[in-house]
């Protein structure tokens, strides 16, 4: 059974010989290779080489063409501030709340900003790995992109002051993400993960998620599925318990859950959906291999009977993590108690 088949079986809640383990390694792959984060997020070939290097070292089941959460907004004209060893951030948002939405144009993933570099990375990764390791692309969620275009505070106030306008903006951002996701699948991704940090209940009320975001996520996932995506993977960090019940309607196949959501909560809310999580990100910096191993074993034991589980961190494994901690998580699926 190759990795793609293993993940597909896990999504279908079938038992597999070894539980898949996916370390959410992005910038850490650059740190490991002695490359600056700046170069890593700017150059597709560098990103792919670093990802391959990290995957060979640790032996986990997926590689990621993930740069940062500002790729789409930069492609549409936002100005970013780049650092040598931190992810770039938006210095100037391209949209203001009063802009004419009819002027907006979906960017061409083959030309706009760093989108082509992400596609290049996917091509290299898929060529090197085939179906032996899952090749994962990335788009942000519709609400997150709106926040990256307008500024998060402006977006939230818009939701209150002019909800119809926000809905139109979200329809547009959904189109951008469908277009970028389609290009990623064509370039070689088995699936694009959808990162939607701004849709977390830590930011928006769950009723907002249900009314504004869920229908757009559904549209996005349906489109990705029709283009051959191997599964709909939704990643929202933070205390997501209150929105988990909407995941099924949105068409989620793999639901990431963060450290602040308990195994019971995730399992009870989504008994028939594949889950991935939920080791605390910071523990890969502050913790020890023994602690990571203990956490991993606890998760593996809890989900052993149920199946439909991918061992992972609750959110990104930070760039400055200790390699021995990542190795401890990967080894946990290999060893029996």
């Amino acid at each position, binding site marked *: 059974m190759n990795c793609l088949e293993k993940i597909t079986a896990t999504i279908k809640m079938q038992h597999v010989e070894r539980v898949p383990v996916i370390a959410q390694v992005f910038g850490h792959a650059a740190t490991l290779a002695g490359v600056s984060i700046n170069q890593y997020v700017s150059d597709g070939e560098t990103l792919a080489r670093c990802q391959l290097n990290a995957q060979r070292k640790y032996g986990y089941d997926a590689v990621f063409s993930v740069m940062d959460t500002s790729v789409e907004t930069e492609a549409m004209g936002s100005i970013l*501030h780049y*650092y040598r*060893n*931190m*992810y770039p*951030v*938006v*210095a100037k948002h391209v949209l203001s709340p009063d802009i004419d939405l009819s002027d907006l144009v979906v960017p061409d993933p083959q030309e706009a900003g760093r989108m082509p570099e992400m596609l290049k990375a996917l091509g290299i990764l898929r060529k090197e790995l085939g179906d032996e390791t899952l090749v994962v692309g990335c788009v942000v969620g519709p609400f997150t992109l709106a926040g990256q275009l307008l500024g*998060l*505070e402006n977006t*939230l*106030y818009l*939701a*209150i002051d002019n909800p119809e306008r926000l809905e139109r903006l979200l329809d547009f951002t959904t189109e951008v993400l469908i277009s970028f996701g389609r290009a990623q699948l064509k370039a070689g991704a088995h699936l694009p993960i959808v990162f939607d940090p701004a849709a977390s209940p*830590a*930011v*928006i*009320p769950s009723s*907002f998620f249900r009314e504004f975001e869920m229908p757009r996520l559904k549209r996005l996932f349906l489109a990705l599925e029709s283009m051959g995506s191997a599964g709909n993977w939704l990643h929202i*960090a*933070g205390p997501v318990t209150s929105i988990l019940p909407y995941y099924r309607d949105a068409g989620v196949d793999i639901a990431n859950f963060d*450290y602040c959501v308990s195994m019971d909560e995730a399992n009870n809310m989504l008994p028939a959906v594949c889950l991935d999580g939920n080791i*605390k*990100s*910071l*523990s890969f*910096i*502050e913790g020890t291999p023994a602690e990571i191993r203990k956490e991993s074993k606890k998760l593996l034991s809890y989900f052993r009977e149920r199946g439909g589980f991918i061992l992972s961190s609750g959110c990104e494994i*930070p*760039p*400055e993590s200790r390699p021995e901690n990542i190795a401890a998580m990967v080894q946990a699926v290999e060893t029996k108690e």
Partner: protein
Amino acid sequence: MVDKRMKAFISAVLQGDCDRSVRVAQELKESGVSSEKIVVNGLETAMSALDAKCTLEEFNLLEIMLAGRAVMAVMKLLYPSGVTTNTSKGTVVIATLEGDVHDLGKNILKMVLIGKGYRVIDCGKDCPLPKLIEVTSSENPIAVGISGLITPVIAQVKQVRGLLDDRNLHQVKVIAGGAALKQSSPEKLNVDFVAESAFDCLHYLEKVAEVAI
């Protein structure tokens, strides 16, 4: 009449109705109520009511943002120059550190603290440590609040206490908050307190302010 109007004012702020809050504050002013009373009896009461409503389980960030926006608009009406007379509770310096632009949490804390009568000096986002230390040295605050959504800022957070101590600012408390920092502990971050939310930070500050007065 004033009591009734003050109640209407508190209700407008709590509902996050910015225009109505400003309108009723203006009426209160015109009927002779001092700016300080509008802050203490109006805004602070509204913020306390919001505080009581927002538990960790039922934390509605948008509700706080809307009330906070009303607070800021009312403060602008009461103190157009930006200088408040009501600083008895003390000054707090806040910042989102260099490399991090996720300042929503910081901005919410700012609105909550202003609503509760603190003087707030906001160093903004992407703030280099030397700037934070300079501002703290010159403003004599009771505390410094630093936020971080991403882990790379942790290295900076750990330095703040020592840098303040180097300048003999031992009495200034260092408070950390934000998604990345919340995962850690005061000991590991070398700070005095790690806040779960803006109101958690406020509760800690109220204790500090009590001692400082």
